[in-house]
Structures are given as structure tokens and as C-alpha cells.
């Protein structure tokens, strides 16, 4: 009987390998580093290429107890949300590879506050850190520059770096040995463009993660999914400016959705609140794992477990 020849793609490109965090040997204080990227084929098709590193899971920790988080989330973490250091430790125990520290929007934000908060979190965990501002370009600059100084040599990922504010953040990353999270609104060409602009400032592409923007399940998830597939195909076809590992934020997006936030006044067909909410985050995240995510920022410890189980299964070959 003639055998069927399974078609294999021969890709010429490869995703860049990027390392987050620095140990004492490299001038930082982290207990370990995390390397992502390096893929030479589409997600988890081990039969035709290499997937050298599993995607990393980052757990989001905020500088103070979030005012607008779903009670399902707040309950899962308990008291640690009052204290970013305790929260970072709890995140490490919950199985994070990386801790993402996010500053929320409030009146006490200042350079000094940002430094202090970063310091307590660095002291509390040995994991590499991602640090995000509250998401307003100017304010982000005001906080991330002192963060970059305070964390000199730690190879933090600073975000988000958008077309509006990339210069300041890239300059800070250059000066203090960090990485940046380059975010564009779901567009292949804009992503390429931003990577070019950043590398024109001489930040090596080994220090740029690309953030294609995430939509939640039911709220635009499929746009992000497809843009990621297109970016990954372009990378494998050899387009050097799309070969950055991808960071996505399914936790933040999914927990903004009504499905995750509320119990009251929702249709009965939505089912149990906690079950649905965790599924909302997990399915948003798992779809993005299938489309090539290299770093996933999650919020609920149960989602972390489930996405980890999926990643382990996809990497076991």
C-alpha cells in the first residue's frame, strides 16, 4: 500500500529568542531567568520544526488592591492584594514564571512611589518582572523611567510602549539594560513599523517583545487571534521585523468582560459565575496559545493551572 506523504512546511525564518530577567551572574538579582521564542514552525507542530521553549505565564500583581476587579478574582487571592510584595510571593507560589507588576491609576503615583513599589516586589520574588504603567502614555513615561533606573540591570520588560511614547521608554530600556513591550492595535504592518522604529533607536531586537493587543473571548478575541497567526507566518517566512516573541494580556481583557465581572442580572444560560469567569479567561488564553503567544499575562490562579496544563501537554512530544 502506498503511504501518504504528510506535507511539511520548510520555513526559512525563526522567532528570536529573548531572555527576561538577569541573575547575579548577568548583573541582576533574579533567582532565575526565563527564555521564550526560538520557534522554527507554527505553534506545537513538533513534526516539522523546533519549539525550544514553552510559553511563559506571567501573573498580574497590582501596586494596590484593585478597585474594579471582579470579586471572583479578589476572593481567589485573598489578603495579599493589599500588599504587592505578598502578592508577588503568592503569584510565585501559584506557579508564575514571571511576575507582572502593574501600576493602577490613583493620586499617589509618583517617581518615588514607583521606585519603592518596584523595590519591594523585586525583594519579594526571584522571578523576572514585567512592569506596566496605568496605560496613559504620559503617566506611563513618568513612572517607567524611574522604574528603569531603580531596576537597573534586572532585564525588566517595560510596557506598554506604543507609537505615542516609545521613544522615552526605549531610551530608558537602553540606558538601564531592560526590554520593552511594543504594543500595536491588532495590525501586522503597524507592529512591523513599531519594531523598526525601536530598532532604529539601537535597542537590539533581542530586547523587544511584541504585543499585538488582545481582545477577550466574545469581545474581539478573533481579531487578535488572526493577527497573531499572520505575524507568526510572516516571521517564519523570514520577515525579520515580525520575529519577536508575542506577549498577550488575556487576563486583563477577559476579566473586563461582563461574563467575568458580574453575577447579577445575567441570563441563567450563562451558568455558574466562577466557573464561567475562569473559563472566560482560560479559553481566551488558550486560543492565543494556539495562535503563537510566547508570554501570557493571567489573573486567576485556577486559569494559571489550566493554561499550564495545556502548555505542558502541547510541549510533551
Amino acid at each position, binding site marked *: 500500500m502506498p503511504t501518504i506523504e*504528510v506535507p511539511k512546511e520548510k520555513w526559512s525564518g525563526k522567532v528570536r529568542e529573548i531572555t527576561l530577567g538577569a541573575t547575579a551572574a548577568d548583573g541582576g538579582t533574579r533567582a532565575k531567568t526565563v527564555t521564550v521564542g526560538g520557534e522554527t514552525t507554527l505553534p506545537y*507542530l513538533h513534526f516539522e520544526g523546533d519549539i525550544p521553549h514553552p510559553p511563559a505565564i506571567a501573573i498580574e500583581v497590582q501596586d494596590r488592591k484593585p478597585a474594579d476587579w471582579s470579586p471572583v478574582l479578589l476572593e481567589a487571592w485573598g489578603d495579599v492584594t493589599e500588599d504587592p510584595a505578598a502578592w508577588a510571593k503568592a503569584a510565585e507560589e501559584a506557579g508564575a514564571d514571571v511576575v507582572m507588576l502593574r501600576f493602577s491609576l490613583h493620586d499617589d503615583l509618583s517617581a518615588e512611589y514607583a521606585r519603592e513599589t518596584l523595590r519591594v516586589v523585586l525583594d519579594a520574588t526571584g522571578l523576572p518582572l514585567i512592569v506596566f504603567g496605568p496605560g496613559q502614555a504620559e503617566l506611563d513615561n513618568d513612572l517607567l523611567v524611574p522604574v528603569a533606573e531603580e531596576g537597573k540591570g534586572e532585564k525588566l520588560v517595560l510596557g506598554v510602549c506604543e507609537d505615542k511614547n516609545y521613544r522615552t521608554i526605549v531610551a530608558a530600556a537602553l540606558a538601564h539594560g531592560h526590554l520593552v513591550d511594543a504594543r500595536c492595535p491588532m495590525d501586522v504592518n503597524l507592529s512591523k513599523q513599531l519594531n523598526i522604529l525601536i530598532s532604529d533607536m539601537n535597542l537590539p531586537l533581542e530586547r523587544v517583545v511584541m504585543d499585538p493587543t488582545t481582545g477577550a473571548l466574545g469581545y474581539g478575541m478573533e*481579531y487578535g*487571534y488572526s493577527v497573531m497567526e*499572520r505575524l507568526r507566518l510572516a516571521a517564519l517566512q523570514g520577515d525579520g521585523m515580525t520575529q519577536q516573541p508575542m506577549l498577550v494580556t488575556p487576563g486583563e481583557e477577559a476579566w473586563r468582560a461582563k461574563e467575568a465581572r458580574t453575577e447579577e442580572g445575567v441570563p*441563567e*444560560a450563562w451558568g455558574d459565575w466562577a466557573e464561567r469567569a475562569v*473559563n472566560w479567561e482560560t*479559553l481566551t488564553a488558550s486560543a492565543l496559545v494556539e495562535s503563537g503567544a510566547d508570554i501570557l499575562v493571567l489573573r486567576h490562579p485556577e486559569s494559571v493551572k489550566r493554561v499550564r496544563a495545556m502548555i505542558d501537554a502541547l510541549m510533551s512530544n
Partner: protein
Amino acid sequence: MALSGLEIYKLLPASSKDPEVKKHGNCKECGFPTCLAFAMKLGQKQAELSQCPYVEEESKAQLEASAAPPIRLITLSGDGHKLEVGNETVLFRHEKTFYHQPGLFVRVKDTQADAAEVAKAVGEYTVDYVGMDLTLDGVAVEADGGDFAATVAAVKEACPLPLVLLTEDPVTAEAGLKAAEGIQSLLWAATPENWEAMAKLAGEYKVPLAVHVDGGDVDALAALAEQVQGTGVEDIVLDPGVRDHVSSLSVFTQLRRLALKKNERKVGYPLIAFAGDDPVLAGQHIAKYAGFVVVDGFSPGTVYPLLVMRANIFTDPQKPIQVKPGVYEINNPKPSDPLMVTTNFSITYFSVANEIESSGIPGWLLVADAEGMSVLTAWAAGKFDAERIAKSVTSTGIGEKLDHQRMVIPGHVAVLMGELEEELPDWEINVGPREAVDLPNFLKMQWG
């Protein structure tokens, strides 16, 4: 896979090796000046092969085969519910779109006391997502040593959806098929051991048949499908026997590529996947190429997100789902009730409309034509600006239905306030909250 015009030309009389056929070449009887011109039109599907009386039998077969879809369309039906899967044409949704959503089935066993109850819940389940009623597609009944026929009958009685009959024993299968008569079920499965008997049953009862091998052996699967097809059973579904994340991703991808890129007919059928009780695996099967996904257990808190995931992945990427621009009246508003403005992206519209509706507050919702984009996307793209909002105020004549001139705009586009006041000088513009969930509270506190 469709042939190009030139490939078709090689099969037409002008290219024939047989002089008796070749002599007709370019005879124009098809209505085109040359065989080549006809070939080009055929390639563009603007002509019918039957227009040429001289095509050789063998060429005809090849041409007809190439016109058939690379993944066969399989239809199941229950009592009023129809499911079509297959007929996909691309590997990635951005290349065109995915057409036929995979059927989602819940598995019950014939040893399970509450099988009919579960089936009833499955059949009755429906959930609204952006104006679409999402439902499951059926029940998979597994022979597990109980009374299979009785369970199938009870499930069929309790639930109007199609069934999948899970048994490898032909005698049991026939009992199940008898019990399921009147609806179009899927029979699982023919194996290398039982395929002759199973194929016979599929032929007699006119149901699609799944072929099942173990361990993702693509060669064995193709061979088995070919054997079954040889008995005259055309409606085939493939089960390569992979049940975990990594091997199902590889094998399903390989089968999809073989069908689409290599035009491998032997595997040109939809795939069936079994996700057990793992919603994440079910999600993978939805995105990566299953035609049927069987899950264990029924729980709305898991089914709803899976149905939404399926709806998202199978949305046509070229056309955002939209609602018609215009004025929508919610909860029978009076002229004094609030007016709110939003865009015509379905997800946006329904987020807002559902909030107002469930709060019981009457209101007018003015949906501007933002070309199907969300509030911020449309704003960033210049499709939801003061000018457009003002235009929809005038074109809908909403002002005449109200006894006030005051409107609430989405909090995310607070920046539009100034320009809107210029465009609509007689109106008072209020900035609402950013998220729709907070809208009812805002209206209670701020309106009036």
C-alpha cells in the same frame, strides 16, 4: 483542489493524444473560440463542462473530481435541527473564512441513569450572543454495556437534536440505528476489524459513518476510509484516534493540509474529536480543524464560553458582525427618556442594549453608522466622530421623538464632547461611563 485554466486545458480535446478526439479541438461548439478560452472560463467557474461534447471520459472524471469540495460536506439532522460540517477551504481563517462550525455534542452512556435528563438539558439549551441564538448540536450516546437501543430511544425522545451513536459492535449499532430511525445520525465507528459490517449498516440506514483507527496513523486511516468508500458509502467522517492536545493538533493539521493542499481525496472528510471533560482541549478542536467535537458532561458555565469561542473563530474576518444603524427603542421609551449614542458593531450594540434592557430603564439608543466598528476602533479610524454622530441625529430625526435635546455619549470618547457641541449647538452632551455595565447606575443617578 480547483485546477487552473492551463491545467484544465491539458484535459480538453485540443491537448488529447487520441487523434480522434484531438480533431475536434477548437471546434467552437462550446460557444468559445478555442479550447483554451473554454478552459479559462471553466477555471473561473463561468462555464459548464457539459458545454463540450468531446471531453474524454477519463478527463471528465478528473475535472469533476477537481470541482468537488476538498473536504466533503456532511449533514446530520434531528427533529428540526440541521448540522452541516466540512467544505472548508483554508487552513487559517484570515485567508478567507471558516464556513461550517463544528458540531458540539455532549456524550452520555447507556449505563448512565440520567442520560435522557442530560439530553433534555442539551436540547433545550440556548443562549443569546450578540443577537444570535447559540445552541449545542446533539448528543453522543455511547454503548457501555447497558441497553443501548433503549437509551438511544429515550435520548431521541428527550432531545430534538442529531445523535452520534458510539459503538464498534455492529449488532449494537443496528439496534441503535433502528431506535434512531427518522433522524440523520452519525455512526461511530468503522474500524479495521468491523468495517464491512459497519459500512453495510451505514448503507442500509443511510447515515454517515466515522472511520476510526488508533494512534493517529494517517495511512491506516486513509486506507480504511478508501475501503469504506469502496462499498458505496460516500458520507465519511475521520477519527484518527488522537485524544490529547499535542497529537491531535499535529494529526488534525496534517489531515487538513492533505485535503486542502494535496487534494488527497482519501482523507477529504470532516474530523471527529473527543475532548473528554477538558474545555481547553475542546477549544483547541474548535480552532484547529474538528468537524465534530464530543465533550463529556453538560454545564452552562462551560458550554456558553465554548459556544462563544466557536462563534468567534467562525466569524467572517472580512465582515464584522453589524446591526443596522438607526434608532432603537428599548423598554418602550417616552419622549422624556434618555438618549444614548453608540456604534453599529454588533458586540458594542448588544453590550449596551442588553444593559439598558435588563435594567428596565426605558431609553432611546441611537446607533451611528460606524462601519461595524467598536467605539474606540471607530473613533481611531475616523468613523465615529462628531460629524457622523450629528449626521445620524439629523437623518434619523430622533430630535422630533424627544421632548429634550440631551444625549449621553460613551465614556471612552469623552474627547468628542467639544466638537459635538459645535456640530449640535442646540444639544446638551453628557459623557457616560466607559463600560456599559455601569450605564444603568449612571442613568439612575444622572438622568432626570
